[in-house]
C-alpha cells in the first residue's frame, strides 16, 4: 500500500526538506538506515531514519545533526510504521 506525505520541519536535512512530497510503501522490507514515516503517540505522524531495529522495536534518528528530538530517545513499535520512504517527488 502506498501513501503520500508532505514533510514539515528541518530535522531530516539534507535528505528531506520541509515541503518535500514523499511516497511511502509498507510492501517493502524495512531495514536499518531506511527513512520511515510512523505514528508517534506524542507527536503524531513523524518521519525519521531508523538507527536500530530489533525484535519488533526500532529507534530513530534525525539526519540533521544540528537538531534534536525526544522522538529519537525512545523505542517505537514496528507496528507504528506507516511505510518506508521509497521516493521523493
Amino acid at each position: 500500500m502506498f501513501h503520500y506525505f508532505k514533510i514539515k520541519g528541518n530535522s531530516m536535512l539534507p535528505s528531506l526538506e520541509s515541503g518535500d512530497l514523499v511516497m511511502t510503501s509498507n510492501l517493502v522490507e524495512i531495514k536499518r538506515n531506511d527513512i520511515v514515516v510512523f505514528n508517534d503517540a506524542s507527536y503524531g505522524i513523524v518521519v525519521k531514519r531508523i538507527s536500530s531495529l530489533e525484535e519488533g522495536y526500532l529507534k530513530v534518528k534525525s539526519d540533521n545533526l544540528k537538531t534534536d528530538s525526544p522522538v529519537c530517545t525512545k523505542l517505537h513499535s514496528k507496528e507504528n510504521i506507516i511505510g518506508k520512504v521509497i521516493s521523493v517527488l
Partner: protein
Amino acid sequence: MKIEEALAHCDIPCKIYDPIVIQIAALTVVRIIDIIEEKKLDSSKSEDCAELARLTLEKENQARIVKDETRIIWGDYFKDPQIEAFPDVHSLVHSIMLQSSKCKQSLSRENAEKLVSLVNEFSEIFWKTKEVETSRVTAPYPPALEMVVPNLS
C-alpha cells in the same frame, strides 16, 4: 487526494548546551591549586587553616561542576547521530570523570592541566557535532591555559 503532513520533528525542552561552563570550572581548579601554592599557607595558623579549607572546598566544588555539566551534555544532548559520528565520546567522558576525581583528591597541577586538556577535547567534539569550527586560544585570565572557543560570526 488528501496528503497528510509527516513531521520531521526537531524540538527539545531546552536546547541550550554550551561546554564553556565545564571549561571555566576546569580552569578554576587549576587556578585554585595555583593560589594554594602561591599563598604558602601555614596550617599552624587558624586563619590560614580557614583559608585553605575554603579554597579546598571550592576546588572540590569546581571539579564537581566539571563532572555534573559534562554528564548533562553527554546524557541529554548526545544522541545516536552524535554518538555515531564521535564513538569515542563515551571513553572521553569517563576519562573526564576519573580526572575530576583525581583533582578532588590532590593538589597536583599536572592532574588539573590534564583535566583542562580532556575538557578541551570534549568541547571540540561538542562544537563539531554542531558543525561549528573552533579555535584553541589562551584563556584571557589566570591560569592562562589553552581553551577551545567556537568561531561564531
